């Protein structure tokens, strides 16, 4: 369970990080993983497969991802700000209380924000990646605590916005993540 959880978390982290050639190149693998592990994702998988076929070359695929990542998360319409504290703290600004709490949580588990990929601590992808690392280390107690106190409240706010954006890949991945993390609770998974 730990291993699959880690892989799933990392796969979603890969999607919600800034587009990266390696992730773009291995998109099919992520889709395959979700198909296997999250059977309810079938409807959404199809659209993603079409996307992969539309952009077989990694460079085109990467630019196509940027075309959606930027207005979705970064600059422009910013349909879904990827930083948790913007949702939880007053005034919709970054590096609010939630960001500090999340950073503190990372530290307490022996993690710091990396040099290689500098992001704010409460970026959606960083939180997902952190959970992947916890899972792979078998730190289940901390994983559950982080999920309950930080990730899930964030996902409840941000995923509907990403889904609503109807942006290929992102919207579908958000839906699958929602099925896995938010709806899964009901099944007692």
């Amino acid at each position, binding site marked *: 369970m730990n291993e699959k959880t*880690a*892989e799933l978390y*990392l*796969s979603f*982290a*890969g999607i919600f*990080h800034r*587009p*990266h050639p*390696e992730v773009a*190149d*291995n998109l*099919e*693998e*992520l889709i*395959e*993983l979700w198909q296997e592990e999250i059977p309810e994702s079938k409807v959404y998988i199809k659209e993603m497969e079409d996307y992969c076929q539309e952009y077989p070359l*990694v460079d085109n695929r*990467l630019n196509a991802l*940027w*075309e959606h990542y*930027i*207005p979705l998360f*970064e*600059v*422009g*319409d910013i349909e879904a*700000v990827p930083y948790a504290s*913007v949702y939880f703290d007053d*005034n*919709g*600004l*970054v*590096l*609010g209380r939630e960001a*500090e*709490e999340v950073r*503190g*949580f*990372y*530290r*307490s*588990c*022996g*993690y*710091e*924000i*990396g*040099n*290689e990929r500098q*992001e*704010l601590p409460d*970026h959606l*992808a*960083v939180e997902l*990646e*952190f959970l*992947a*690392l916890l899972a*792979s280390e078998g730190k289940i107690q901390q994983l559950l605590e982080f999920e309950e106190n930080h990730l899930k409240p964030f996902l409840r706010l941000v995923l509907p916005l990403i889904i609503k954006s109807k942006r290929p890949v992102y919207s579908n991945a958000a839906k699958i993540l929602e099925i896995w993390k938010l709806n899964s609770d009901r099944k007692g998974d």
Partner: protein
Amino acid sequence: MLTPVVIILKICENNLKKLVIFLFGGKGVNRRQFIKRALYGAGGTAVAISGFGALTKAAPKPALATATNEETTVFSSCEMCRNQCPVAVKVVDGKVSKIEGNPNDSGFGGVICARGNSGPSMLYDPQRLKKPMIRTGERGSGKYKEVSWDEAYTYIAEKVKELQQKYGGESVAFASRKGPHDWFFRAIGKGIGSPNIFSHEATCPMTRSVALHSMFGSEAIAADYGNAKYIVSVGRNWLEGIHVAQTRSIMKAIDNGAKIVVLDPRFSVTASKGEWIPIKGATDLAFVMAMANVIIADGTYDKDFIERYTSGFDKWQVEVKDKTPEWAEKETGIPKDTIIRIAREFVKHSPKAILDFGWRTGITPNDYQLRRAIMFVNMMMGNFEVPGGYYHKKYAAVLKKFPEMSSYAKTLGDIYQPAFPKPSTYRIDGTGIKGIPGQLIPEGDGAVSQIPESILTGQPYPIKGWFVHRFNPVISVTESDRIIEALKKLDLLVVCDIYMTDTAMFADVILPECSYLERYDKVFDMSGKTPKYVLRQPAVELVYPDTKPSWQIYKELAVKMGLGHYFPYEDMEEFISRQLAPAGLTLDYMKQKGVWTPEGMKPFYIRANDHTASLDDIVHRTDSKIEFYSEEVEEATKQGIPKYEQYPQPQEGEFRFVQGKVAVHTNAGTANVPVLNELMPENSLWINQESANKLGIREGEDIIISNGKYEHKGKAKVTQGIRPDTVFCYHGFGRISPGLKRAYGKGINGNKLINNVIGEVGNVCTSMSFVTVKKA
């Protein structure tokens, strides 16, 4: 020779993951291995738990070990507008919690305006630019990819090289909002041999600079509002166009009983604190000439001052002989008795009287003549180098010339830059060419609205590349659509900013600068009545780790372009220390105070105690005389003495369209800043009640404004506070960049409705457009 194993180990030390992916990667080959590899490293042996590198392993620490809730103060300087006011930044646990004025500066007294106060909301705005970007779609389509700084620099360097080879370095223009970044920004332009380096000044106070230079041989003339007893504004609006020190001085003057008279077609906040004279648009020069006429007819001018310090007054006397109050009444719509009364009140209070020389000037094509005439009237009354009048700024180089003051003169050092190549051709705007109006345009500023013209017409030669730093011509230069058309025609547009501005959205490369709260800048000289140096230093670490200060961006770009030798410093601490050393100051001192001004020095007015004191050291014209008649202006424009030019007035059904500043925003700069946007998200069109009635327009209704060429939607603000023949809106709204999400599409962009007419000395002309208004 290294064996493969050694090579692998060497690389491993630096970048294990990339190597692993290189060795084992490839689509389809190792399906379902990508995630595993990223998680566990190669071959399932977990060398280091890595993920994608967003987090690194460290020794566990208590979650909130660093939170102390202790407040520290970092003294720095503001950049919510270009005035660079000294501020005290309050920092709690590495975050800016609040910004106040720097109490170490008596001119500010711990006070800062709404914009300065709102700084933290800009600092932590999720809508800021965060990474360098390169355009992937059509210009303006918003399609970009994020790239590394190195990729961005490489792209720019290659493109510039291409342009240099094909069209010469002069084909690349540089324009910035004037500021301390210019030392770095301009070095790129000078380095490639481009003469076409511009500031934003032509859209703002340039005609004033031209006027001052033509009279005094110096632009460094300021007004001592705080001690004045009578102040006449010619469209100046200190209480909405906030300059904290000046705004406070005006309020101090009012508190001490000074009278304020405001000539403005619109009832501004400043007008509400004094006597409002709703002058007919574009006729200010008639009023000023009539003032001179009255004063000369009365014989009340300061004959000794004119005799002792000026030249060419006789020619001015001739010019205004027939500019009687009766004549001016017809031109300006101001009753002649009012003109006479104001002229006499002005005389009565002189030399503690100021006929203000303006801030955002450029009302008409010959605006510089208005500014000269204004200063003529001040000089006629000897309102110079005495408290309550005008004065030359007392920076170190000036004080050095006065033995009793020289001990206060501590000169900042220059950072040596090797000689730049001499541009192989003249500037596109004719700046500096003798015998044409360009002769008068300040070399460091230029006529910035010539850039889009040269892009579009190829005249006098084509501009193919444009670097823009913290400047937004699409909103701040007239005729927005023409600017956009020009931007779309460029081969290279590079924009450095903190937001996706209306200009950045058309760029090929976007460079994200960090905010003023996260960086050092060159120490700036803000000397006024006493010398003053102000520091900008980081209050907090970078919020978005991949943004950079401009001094670093242009240095790194320069290195990539082979121009690194023009940036002879390692970092800004070193740069600043070298600036400060000759003044006997240290970075440490400046960090503790934020500002330096000589201890014990009182404001220094050369003529305060001796009305015959020599002004030779501050007036740099022929024989050190302040020039009414100017040989230089005569040579350039054939108008050595200002002549009145009658400009058209709006016809029935038309309105003169004018713009102005508002206290809670900075021009084209702050519409998207969270707290300021919240206070004022949009503007509306002020229209006189009676005029609105005729058009059937009611308060708050949707309207369409048209200048015949362009149309703009907006909302009406029906008011008694404007001339019936004039409409007005605050500047800086109606933003077209979706990247400014809060401000996008809200309100009216006035500059869309003003055609790009370049004034006589290169200025934009803000008030020469007529519009019609109808219900939407």
